[in-house]
């Protein structure tokens, strides 16, 4: 699950890179294929996708910050337990805060807020990055990954809401004659859309790779 050890030897990584790599190069959804459960489950509308992305980003940033601060005091043997406790704490906080902000959003996200605890992006970043880097880089890395996750969710949510409901942000954007594709809101629609995006991203990557090779030659 974690990338090869060598990837994290680059101690001198500039902070900007720590942030940027989550957006594109190591995008948690489109490149690392992590956290698929919420990606497929709550990406049927843009608003759900955005709320889920923001909640997960908050948990990711706070957990990684705390893990990074405490990294020297956590014995290796109990690190996973400790990380999970820290992550669960912030998930509980998000859960309460969302209830305080709006019960409507809280009801819309259903069970998936609680399930942020087991989102492997968060444990993955805590284990692979935050526990080995200083707090500033850990926060930037977590923030980048969170934004990358949110972008991916919104990409899926946009396509699925547009085709499945004929709306965007709840506003109707298709003509009356458009018959919504119910399958796009259902789980198969999530898989189909994700497949489509992966195809698109890999195609771009391949094209870029070929262009770079061409220049070198």
């Amino acid at each position, binding site marked *: 699950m974690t990338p090869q050890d060598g990837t994290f030897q680059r101690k001198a990584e500039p902070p900007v890179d720590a942030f940027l790599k989550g957006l594109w190069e190591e995008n948690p959804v489109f490149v690392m294929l992590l956290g698929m459960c919420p990606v497929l489950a709550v990406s049927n509308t843009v608003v759900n996708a955005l709320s889920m992305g923001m909640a997960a980003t908050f948990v990711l940033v706070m957990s990684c910050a705390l893990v990074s601060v405490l990294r020297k005091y956590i014995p290796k*043997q109990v690190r996973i*337990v400790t990380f999970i406790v820290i992550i669960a704490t912030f998930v509980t906080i998000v859960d309460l*805060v969302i209830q305080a902000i709006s019960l409507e959003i809280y*009801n*819309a996200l259903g*069970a998936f807020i609680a399930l942020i605890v087991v989102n492997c992006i968060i444990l993955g970043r805590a284990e692979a990055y935050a526990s080995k880097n200083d707090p500033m880089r850990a926060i930037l890395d977590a923030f980048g990954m969170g934004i990358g996750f949110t972008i991916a969710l919104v990409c899926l949510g946009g396509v699925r809401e547009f085709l499945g409901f004929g709306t965007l942000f709840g506003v109707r954007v298709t003509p009356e004659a458009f018959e919504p594709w119910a399958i796009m809101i259902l789980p198969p629609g999530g898989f189909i859309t994700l497949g489509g995006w992966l195809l698109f991203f890999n195609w771009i990557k391949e094209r870029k790779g070929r262009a770079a090779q061409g220049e070198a030659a």
Partner: protein
Amino acid sequence: MTSTNTVMPMAQPVSSFKMIRTVAGVSIMSGFMILAVVKATEARIENNKRVALADAVMAVLPDADTNKTFEVTGDGFRLVDTPVPGADRVYAGYDAEGRFVGAAFEAAAQGYQDVVRTLFGYSPERDCIIGFKVLESKETPGLGDRIGKDAEFLANFDGLDVALGADQTALAHAIAFVKRGEKTNPWEIDGITGATISSRAVAKMANERSQQVVPFIKRHLDQLKEGT
């Protein structure tokens, strides 16, 4: 994988005490953090729930302008001041002239993910359920949560028959769940395709609670009409 494991430096042996201390320390810290957030958000969450409930009562009793909360006791209803949500409560709605127009009551049942809490509006005059609203649900977004959004499903609760049987202690016809499009009687609930478990849960709670509450309301209707 095995080759990387063998070259990885072994973790330093650490005393159990240190491990316990770390986990206990982090847990205590977590406890305090959660406690602080609970304290900070408690009032607002409580208030949000109250507002949501008040809105829901108005939504399920379309003719009501004001409402009063009654607690169910052994021998009738007792007026309570603060509208705190609770299972043993009935919310009576009154129109602008103060006439009793109907009562709302809560219901709950296990859905697909977790317990679904809902509110039903009941009109003793028409002998039927006149409104329905989901108060709290963790049903899957886009699937189970359609119990609160699907227009065709919600149409079930505009005139769902809950007339009492001859002995006035139970419904003449138990509320029954049927598959979408198979509804033929006014006491049947048309389910949602793709949200069968959630919509069946709604039908189940509608039946169970109506069987209890409707005969009780009928018996003590005068108290609600007087509003005391």
